[in-house]
Every structure is written in structure tokens, then in C-alpha cells.
């Protein structure tokens, strides 16, 4: 955003107007409803329909079609929910934490981060509903919700975070919409109309920039406590119970640091995708990948630090219930999963990323793929194993209920949520400029002006 005294002169300069032309033509090239878009959305819709059919079976038969039983009543639905909430946190990390601290390089990727935040936060709520045997009773959460229940807090903060993320995606885009509306005349009518309405009478006036900057700054600050709240509260859903493996006082920061890892890797994957498919190599440069790779290393090291705390301290004391839990993770039933996740998804990526060659876009994409997948599985490890050994003896249950195994239907419904996320990302990035046109043009003009001055 804008403008100091000096920048005032920039956005009125001839050079800036030309820049806008070239940048917007690069970026708006992708804003269109073409065959590829329709085929891709069609494919996603068919896949979604198939997976939603699985959900109708669950609606009819109840949760008995899932692997959830008395002993393990939270399975991949809840793990997936935690993963979604976690991943959506990256909007706050990139736009607010890095943006407010003055990192200029985040400008082109801030919107991508917000798209990811919006998509994952929007679907996170739906994932919770899929975990309900009687979704028709959802209104009861609001009608009879207890303010003492972290579930109510969670519903509140996830909803609020979603709206604020949506605003943070939309508000900085208003100037772009105004710039674009005159340049997309060959696109479908409804799209032009939408740009017309959504650009809120934007006329590129200094006064409007002032108001917009104020509003965005408020949002950037507001989103920080909100993001901390959504993931801390999500961690409390577990940490407020005395179960071994959940009963931890560092669950809040443990979750948040983990969230930054999964979110950053998701942003890297999206960046790579847009760079290659949208031909945006000029704007999403190797330098951007280099920088965000360093962010990934930093957040991963923080997460490793919290992992050590989370396992070493109870591992030293070995209270009986923790002992059972840790044994399951370290050398028992979940050991292969646990060690693959910790090593392939956290330790090895950090080591690899210490090498400059690994921070190039393609190697970084592969590493991020591992990190993101491990992030999902890590949520499974956090959610499922602690339920297998409750304090009270498990009794009067058939043996096959003791070990949780997700069913096909459950996996299909979970896939549905991932498809929904991809659909939202597709719509937001295909119908609207995926990079901030105005900010990039301004930044480049300023850089060139500075170079001229210094010469």
C-alpha cells in the first residue's frame, strides 16, 4: 500500500502508468474463464460429487460407517480439521508478521497466502460438520452452547478468522479491481460486473489510499491475535483433557509453530504452481523462493524445538499414562509413522534447505510436498494415538474397536474437503488477479526511480 510524500509523485508519474500497463497485462492474462478452467472445475465437481455421495451414505447410516468407535471417537476428520486450521494460519504469518516488520519481498506472495488462509479456514468449519453424526443438531451449538466449552470458542474464532482473512484478501485488491475492470472487456459480462461492484468506486485518489491503508493496517493487526486464538483454542480442544499425549501446557505454541510449517509449505507449493502455470517467473522470482525457503527453515526449527519439549519432558518423567503413549509412538504401533513424519517432514527438510541449491524453486517444491504431507500425518499422530489408552479400563468392547482404522467412506469425505479447498483456491486465483498489480507496479517504479537517482 501507499503513500508517503515521495510516493505521491510515483503514482502520478508517466513511468508508473506504463508499468501498470505491462504488469496488469502479465497478470490479467490468467484471469479468464477458458477451456482449461472449465475442464478443471468440471473434473473437480465430478470428484466432489463422488465423494459427497460417500457423505450421503454417512448421513443415512450414521458414523458407524466410519472407523470411529467408543474408544477412538476422533479420527481423520478431526486430524484434517486441525490441519486445515493450521494451514490457514499462514495468511497471518506472511501478511502481518513479515509484512508489518517491513519485509518488502512478501508483497507478491501476500495475496497467495491470503487465498490459502481463506480457502482452508472456510472448509475447516465444514470438516467439523462432517464429524457430526447428527449434523442437523449443529444449531444446538449456538442455541445451547456453553461459554465454558472450547468447542464454542473454536466455532467463534474460526468464523471470525475466516471473515477477517476474506477482508484481508479483498481490501488490498480493490485498487487492482479498479485497474482491471477497464482491461478485461473481453471477459464474461458477470465478471466485469463483479469487478465494477467490488472496486467500490475506486478512482485511485490519494484520499482513498489513505482510508484503505488505515483499514488494512487495522486488519493486519487484528488478524494476529485472531490467528493465535484460532490455533491455540484448537489445541485446547485437546489440552484441556487430562489424557496422556494431550495433557500438555505447551500445546498452544506447539500447534502454532507447527501451523507455520504446514502453511509455509502450502504457500510454497501454490507459489510454484502459479509461477509455472501462470507464467509469472518475472514476479515470483528465484529470490522469492530463496527467501521463503529461509522462512520455512526458521519455522521448522522453532517447531523442532517445541517437539523436543513436547516429548522430552514427559519422556523424562514417564508418568504411567505418558509412558504408554510415548512407547506407542517411539517403538510401538505408531513408530513407523511417527519417525517418518519427524524425519522426512521436519528434520531432513531443514538439513537439506541449508544448501543453497535446495532453495531453488523445484527442489523447494519437492521438499515442501514432503513437509505438507508430514504435517497432515502429524495431526493424525496428535489426534488418534492418545485415545487408544484412556485412564479408565476399556471394557465390554469388541476387540476390533480398539484400533482405529479409517474407512473408505471416511477417506472419501476427507477427500471432499480437500477438493473444496482446491476449488476455492482455483476460483479465487482464476477470476481475480493472483498477484497485487498496483503494489508490484509501484514497487518496480520506485526501484527504477531510485536507480535513476543514484546514477
Amino acid at each position, binding site marked *: 500500500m501507499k503513500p508517503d510524500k515521495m510516493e505521491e509523485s510515483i503514482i502520478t508519474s508517466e513511468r508508473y502508468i506504463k508499468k501498470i500497463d505491462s504488469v496488469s497485462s502479465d497478470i490479467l492474462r490468467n484471469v479468464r474463464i477458458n477451456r482449461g478452467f472449465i475442464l478443471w472445475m468440471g473434473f473437480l465437481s465430478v470428484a466432489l460429487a463422488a465423494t459427497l455421495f460417500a457423505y450421503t451414505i454417512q448421513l443415512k447410516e450414521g458414523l458407524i460407517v466410519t472407523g470411529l468407535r467408543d474408544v477412538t471417537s476422533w479420527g481423520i476428520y478431526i486430524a484434517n480439521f486441525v490441519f486445515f486450521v493450521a494451514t490457514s494460519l499462514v495468511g497471518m504469518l506472511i501478511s502481518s508478521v513479515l509484512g508489518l516488520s517491513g519485509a518488502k519481498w512478501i508483497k507478491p506472495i501476500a495475496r497467495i497466502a491470503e487465498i490459502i488462509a481463506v480457502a482452508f479456514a472456510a472448509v475447516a468449519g465444514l470438516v467439523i460438520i462432517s464429524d457430526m453424526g447428527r449434523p442437523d443438531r449443529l444449531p444446538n451449538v449456538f442455541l*445451547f*452452547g*456453553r*461459554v*465454558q466449552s472450547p468447542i464454542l*470458542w473454536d466455532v*467463534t474464532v474460526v468464523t*471470525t478468522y475466516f*471473515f*477477517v482473512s476474506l*477482508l484481508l484478501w479483498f*481490501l488490498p485488491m*480493490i485498487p487492482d479491481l*479498479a*485497474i482491471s475492470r*477497464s482491461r478485461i472487456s473481453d471477459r464474461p459480462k458477470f465478471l466485469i460486473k463483479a469487478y465494477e461492484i467490488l472496486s*467500490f*468506486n*475506486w*478512482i*485511485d*485518489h490519494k*484520499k*482513498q489510499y489513505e*482510508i*484503505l491503508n*488505515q*483499514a488494512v493496517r*487495522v*486488519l493486519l493487526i*487484528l488478524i494476529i491475535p*485472531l490467528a493465535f*486464538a484460532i490455533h491455540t483454542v484448537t489445541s485446547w480442544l485437546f489440552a484441556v483433557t487430562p489424557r496422556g499425549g494431550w495433557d500438555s501446557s505447551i500445546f498452544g505454541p506447539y500447534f502454532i509453530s507447527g501451523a507455520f510449517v504446514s502453511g509455509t509449505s502450502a504457500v510454497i507449493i501454490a507459489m510454484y504452481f502459479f509461477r509455472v502455470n501462470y507464467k509469472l517467473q518475472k514476479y515470483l522470482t528465484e529470490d522469492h523462493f530463496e527467501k521463503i525457503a529461509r522462512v520455512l527453515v526458521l519455522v521448522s526449527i522453532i517447531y523442532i524445538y517445541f517437539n523436543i519439549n513436547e516429548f522430552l519432558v514427559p519422556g523424562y518423567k514417564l508418568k504411567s499414562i505418558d509412558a504408554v503413549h510415548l512407547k506407542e509412538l517411539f517403538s510401538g504401533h505408531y513408530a513407523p509413522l511417527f519417525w517418518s513424519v519427524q524425519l522426512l517432514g521436519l528434520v531432513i527438510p531443514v538439513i537439506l534447505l541449508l544448501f543453497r541449491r535446495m532453495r531453488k524453486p523445484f527442489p523447494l517444491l519437492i521438499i515442501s510436498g514432503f513437509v505438507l504431507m508430514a504435517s497432515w500425518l502429524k495431526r493424525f499422530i496428535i489426534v488418534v494415538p492418545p485415545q487408544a489408552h484412556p485412564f479408565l*479400563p476399556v*471394557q*465390554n*468392547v*469388541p*476387540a476390533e474397536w480398539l484400533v482405529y482404522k479409517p474407512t473408505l467412506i471416511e477417506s472419501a469425505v476427507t477427500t471432499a474437503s480437500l477438493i473444496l479447498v482446491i476449488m476455492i483456491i482455483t476460483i479465487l486465483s482464476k477470476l481475480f488477479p493472483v498477484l497485487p498489480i498496483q503494489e508490484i507496479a509501484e514497487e518496480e517504479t520506485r526501484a527504477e526511480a531510485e536507480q535513476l537517482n543514484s546514477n
Partner: protein
Amino acid sequence: MKNILLVIITLQLFIFDLKSQEWIVPDDKKSKLSTFPFDDITRKAGEKLFSVNCMSCHGTPGKGNFLNLVPPPGDPATEKIQRNSDGEIFYKITTGRGQMPSFKSVLSSPEIWNIISYLRSFNKTYQQQVMAVITSSAYPGADIGLFLLFNSSDSTVILRASATKGNSTVPVTGAEVKLLIHRTFGLLTVDEAKTTDKNGMATFRLPDNLPGDTSGNIMVSARFVNEELFGSSTKDTSLCAGIKTIPVNLVADRAMWNNVRKAPVWLILTYSLGLLTALGFIFYVLMKLRDIFIVGETLSSEKPSKEK
């Protein structure tokens, strides 16, 4: 032929031995019988006792849903348990083994027999044999009575045992007696077992910190240790020997676990203020959006916009 049979039998025993070590009951205990006939009343009582004391491990009889322990507890409706004689079951319940607890001080003999009567209701072929002698063998034909007297000044309970036959009543001497207190689960033995003196009396000392009901009453129960010899006479009495315990109403005040109307004030404030602040800022931002719209409208009507 005989030899082959013998080999098979020994082999069978051997295999059985591998699976679980057999639980040997002394011969004199095997033939022990209930002193009363089993009927619907005893079965009902037994069912209740079973669900409180045994179900957690043995599951519901007939369902096979017993706990996965080693050795397995087994379903009482099956052959594994039903092939025991009444005396064997009684012995196993009283003494216990491994993970199977001993119920000696938890259940009285009649209670155990009630449970056996319930277990036997799952066995169609079972025919009960009732013990012929139902009273004391030390005082044949006499009615044995136990009486309790609480002395609040020094917290002692004096027990007197007597045998009545016709018009004559004699003290029961040299009999080992014990005193038990009823609690939510089972019975608690207080003090040690005592032997009645020549007057048939024994004195127990009660601890002074026993929690009683709202008026300080506790239920105590006196029994003979050797019920074979003296019969299963028991004496249940309510004594005012405990501390008055007024149960705390955990849902009377505001608390984390209470309903929403009784939520802690600080929590309601934190939640509402947090939510209102966030909504307030969102409202502020929406107002700014409106300002942008208005500014655009007024300015563009004043002068042509830079954009076409």
C-alpha cells in the same frame, strides 16, 4: 485301546495345561453348598451384585464381552465357568487368583451365593443341591444372635454373641468375629478380627475420622470369621459414629462445569469482550469500505477520474 485313551487324556490335560494353568480347588471346598435354595429373589440380588462387582471384567453373561486379560476371565454363561461345582465357584470368588480379585472382605457368603444363583440361571441343565445343615455346627440347633453397642465416649463398639435354644441363652465364646463398615463399593474391615471372651463379648475400636452421612451415621456389620462353624449370622446396625458429612452441591455456584447460566463471570467477560472487540474492528473496516465508496462517488462527480 485303553492305552490310546490314556494317551489322549494325558495329551488333553497337557494341552489344557499349556493354555491356562488349572485352578485347583481343595477337595473339602469343592463340595461346599449354598445354605439356601436359589430362587428369583436370590437371582435378582445376584444380578445386581454381579453388575457392580464382576461385570467390569467378566462382561455380560452370554455376550462373551469379557476383558482381554491373561488368563482370560471368561464368560460366566459358558462351559468354562459352568463346569465348576458350586463349591468351586464359591472358592474362586472368595480367594481370587492373579487378576481375579479376592472378594472375601467385599462380599458376604450369602451375597456370593446370590451371585452363584444368578450365574447358574444361564445353565439350563443345572440342578441345585442345598446344604442340609443351615445353622451353627458349634451350637447345634441354636439360633445365633449378634448384638452391637456403640460407646461414643471412647469410640468403641462392643459386640455380644449369644446362642438361643428354647428358653436358654448362652454366650458364644471363643468365636472369631469381625466388624465391617459399608461403603459405596464393598465393605471396609475396621480394627482387627477379635475373639469373643467368656461373656461372648468383643470390643472394636473405631477410628474417629470416619465419614458418616448428614447426621453422622454409618452402617456397620458384624460377622463370624468362621461361618462354617457359627453360621452366617450377621448384624447390620446404623451407628452414630462418623463425622457429619454434608455433601457439597457441586452445581450450586458458578463453575467451569456448570451450565451456561452459571458460567464463571470472568469467562463470560473475556469471551464477550474478545468477540465484541473483534466485531468492532470488523465493523470499523466495513465503515472504511463505505467511506472509500463515498469518496469515490463524490470525487468522480466533481472531476473526471484518471481511469477511463
